[in-house]
């Protein structure tokens, strides 16, 4: 038998450490790769949902402008309630005359902002979770005071 001249214990430890190193390296590389691409997909999905929601807000704004008197104007769209596994919410904010729509994902904290025209009547802040979001006008005296979003 050829004697390798190494003790069983040493080679045993050596191999085991290489093994664990190899596996943990693989695991770590893999999970960061998955995490990164997951965050990228979440950001894209929030942006797409945000653009759809923004066009709904603009459509309701046109609904309010077209007639002489508006009694009710609302538009709802069903979005996925979870974005690549994480929940998210949408906030329609006056933002001091420059209204914006902000979408925030919870698990990896991803935030997306979409600007809206300053002529769109939005005051204060309204909020809706992911899922079916209704965009509608709060109406008084036949005109649309402000556009709000809520869960339908």
């Amino acid at each position: 038998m050829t004697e390798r001249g190494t003790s069983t214990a040493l080679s045993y430890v050596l191999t085991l450490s290489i093994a664990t190193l190899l596996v943990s390296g693989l695991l770590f590389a893999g999970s960061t790769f998955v995490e990164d691409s997951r965050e990228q997909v979440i950001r894209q999905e929030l942006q797409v949902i945000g653009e759809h929601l923004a066009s709904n807000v603009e459509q309701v704004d046109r609904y309010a402008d077209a007639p002489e008197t508006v009694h009710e104007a609302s538009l709802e769209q069903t979005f996925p309630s979870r974005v690549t596994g994480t929940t998210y919410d949408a906030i329609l904010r006056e933002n001091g005359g420059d209204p914006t729509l902000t979408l925030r994902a919870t698990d990896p904290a991803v935030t997306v902002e979409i600007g809206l025209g300053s002529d769109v009547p939005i005051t204060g802040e309204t909020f809706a979770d992911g899922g079916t979001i209704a965009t509608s006008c709060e109406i008084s005296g036949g005109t649309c005071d402000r556009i709000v979003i809520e869960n339908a």
Partner: protein
Amino acid sequence: MATGPPRPPGGRAHTDDSRAQTTLDFAIGVSLFLSVMLFVFAFVPGILQPFELSGEQDTVLSERIASDLSQGTLGDPSEPYVLETHCTVAFFDEGSASPSRCDYEGSTIQERLTVEDHRNVNVSLRGTLSGADEDLLCWDATSQRIVERGSGDCNPDAGDDDRLMTGGETPPQSNDATVSSRRVVGIQQANITMRVVVW
């Protein structure tokens, strides 16, 4: 020495050469595994490549801009797809302030469309008002009419207020990562095409 499990058939002796087979088995096993590993590592990026998402929201953005311009901002929401002449002409007048009665603000196309300044957007009006093929349109201040660029009445750089009906950066001809939305709209009793390009 206790006898091990029954000798394998063929009566091979328990000599070192049995390790040779083990080495052979080992070689086969690892090589197979490595080849599969390499194949997988070569193959997986291939799956992912079409789903490398970038600029997905541009499609929805260009649709949103086109619908907003054609159904409300440049005209009147009570009559969709019909543009009001002066607000449309003033929209393409970049650099000067927006007229207060029009439905947009700011002096650059990005501000008027409320998109971030770094976004590349181009809005243009094209049509076949005279002749056969579609051409970029132009505002002829002397006759106060919208004419084709090649119609002779249009001289945007001649000092009078003629103006080409295109706004924002010029879209790149080469790369294909642009999204464009088209709307047919009416202006001055003619039907033309509004094109919004986002990239």
